[in-house]
């Protein structure tokens, strides 16, 4: 076993150890398992929220995107920052309502607000369809990292199985506490590794940032800013906005809101999290540094930019440390996704079918579902194929469709009906799928419009359809129920002080 593999193995064991210890000495009820008894202070909530951002996508995809596409990569920097600003206002009422009504999951929120378990099923299905590809991406990334950092000694297939087993074990034993404590190790490591690489590579290969960017500008003029056409400023702004709206709509991200001890913890984090975004800058610098050093990566290979660059100058032990950090960036979000998906299935689908099921039964079902979901994800990971990539691209647009009915349920004046919310979400999701499968853009849909509009992110169309259907169906159902003059418990009483 070489030095690099030793580092990677240590990371897996560390994750396993922390994952097991995290839940020690606690009675694991459903509330402990899913939301840690709503007891986390600012640091742990911070790590959970940061844990969801710094995934293998950031580590490999962030550098790969900077390498392959250049300037458009900055959108990652911006959307999360804006999402954090929104979080200051959006999350405290969600937390408050979750606490008052004892909610565990994202669909719970819709079920309770709209008094409709069926809406919960719709939201759960949207969530699961979006989560599975996200989990596959983590496993895939893990395989790539272990294979690259271990100099090929462990095939990615073996790494995927091991990673899935570790994540499954941690989640089954400790629930969200396992993810939070593993995140402590992960974020410390990734912070050190990424900052080091982001500073070292430009210095080592070019003698500094300025010479590096000057060299890139010579070979590829304008590569480090947005192109005039295609991924232009129009594309950029609309993508940043849409992605920011979808940010907290991921079921696992939403779930981590409930773990906070109080709303102050959430507001406090909204101050710090934007600064944490700056770490991404270092990831991008690694990708930029690779452009002229390992110039021939094509297609999916661009995700290897970071490792190709690291294997050249570093000793195996250092590559091992980088690999270890990479493995942890896959395991933390992977475990959170596993838990969120299991909770959705058990709490919001199984419980709807078996109404008499109590919390303990639901918890046991959720725990049993963890390995099942992990196996499904492993299957898709090993099977490969492009379908999953297409699904992943759709995933973000899918969860964004939940934004509208969520936000409109927060206000005092509630005119959206459960039928309106469900119809809007379904219409939005169907539109996303249709657009993605036909590769439509606003340009192909409405060719007569000016370029500044045709280059907007096509997700806007789905959100517009969602809004339209939501409004029409809500007004329609209100009108029908008013005519039949039935008492309408469409939504919970709006007497709650906002």
């Amino acid at each position, binding site marked *: 076993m070489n030095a690099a593999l030793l580092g990677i193995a240590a990371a897996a064991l560390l994750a396993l150890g922390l994952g097991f210890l995290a839940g020690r000495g606690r009675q694991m009820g459903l509330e402990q398992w899913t939301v840690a008894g709503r007891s986390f202070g600012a640091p742990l909530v911070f790590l959970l929220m940061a844990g969801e951002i710094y995934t293998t996508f950031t580590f490999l995809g962030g550098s790969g995107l900077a390498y392959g596409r250049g*300037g458009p990569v900055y959108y990652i*920097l911006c959307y999360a920052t804006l999402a954090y600003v929104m979080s200051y206002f959006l999350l405290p009422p969600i937390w408050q309502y979750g606490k008052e009504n004892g909610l565990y999951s994202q669909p719970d929120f819709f079920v309770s607000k709209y008094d409709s378990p069926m809406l919960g099923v719709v939201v759960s299905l949207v969530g699961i369809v979006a989560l599975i590809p996200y989990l596959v991406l983590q496993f895939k990334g893990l395989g790539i990292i272990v294979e690259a950092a271990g100099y090929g000694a462990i095939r990615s297939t073996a790494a995927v199985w091991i990673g899935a087993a570790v994540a499954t074990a941690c989640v089954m034993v400790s629930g969200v506490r396992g993810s939070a404590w593993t995140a402590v190790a992960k974020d410390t490591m990734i912070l050190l590794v990424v900052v080091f690489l982001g500073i070292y590579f430009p210095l080592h290969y070019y003698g500094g940032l300025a010479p590096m960017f000057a060299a890139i500008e010579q070979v590829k003029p304008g590569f*480090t*800013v947005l192109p005039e056409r295609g991924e232009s400023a129009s594309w950029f*702004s609309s993508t940043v906005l849409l992605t920011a709206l979808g940010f907290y709509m991921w079921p696992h991200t939403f779930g981590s809101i409930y773990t906070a001890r109080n709303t102050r913890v959430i507001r406090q984090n909204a101050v710090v999290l*934007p600064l944490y975004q700056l770490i991404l800058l270092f990831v991008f610098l690694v990708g930029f540094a690779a452009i002229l050093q390992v110039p021939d990566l094509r297609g999916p290979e661009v995700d290897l930019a970071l490792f190709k660059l690291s294997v050249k100058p570093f000793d195996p032990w250092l590559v091992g440390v980088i690999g270890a950090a990479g493995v942890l960036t896959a395991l933390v979000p992977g475990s959170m996704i596993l838990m969120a998906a299991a909770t959705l299935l058990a709490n919001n689908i199984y419980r709807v079918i078996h109404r008499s099921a109590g919390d303990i039964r639901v918890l046991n079902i959720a725990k049993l579902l963890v390995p099942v979901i992990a196996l499904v994800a492993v299957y898709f990971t090993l099977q490969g194929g492009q379908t999953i990539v297409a699904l992943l691209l759709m995933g973000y647009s899918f969860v964004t469709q939940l934004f509208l009915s969520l936000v409109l349920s927060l206000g005092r004046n509630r005119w959206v009906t459960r039928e309106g919310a469900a119809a809007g979400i379904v219409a939005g999701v169907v539109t996303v799928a249709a657009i993605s499968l036909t590769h439509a853009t606003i340009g192909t849909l409405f060719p007569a419009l000016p370029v500044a509009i045709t280059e907007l992110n096509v997700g806007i169309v789905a959100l517009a359809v969602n809004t339209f259907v939501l409004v029409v169906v809500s007004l329609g159902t209100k009108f029908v129920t008013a005519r039949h003059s039935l008492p309408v418990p469409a939504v919970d009483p709006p007497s709650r002080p906002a």
Partner: protein
Amino acid sequence: MPMVRWLALLPFLGMLVGPFFVNRVAPYILGMPFLPAWFVAWILITAAIVAVIFRYDPANREERE
């Protein structure tokens, strides 16, 4: 709503409207092309703005236990 909360709109202007006007390589700031430097500046400004909102938002005083 407390007036100070309106400051939260500024990051959206900087990051969503800004790119239409500052999408350029030169001048380099601290070795970075102008566009990424602009975003880095706005991340710092955003953190400062949220800190100010946090400081003056009455919601946080009520909750202090």
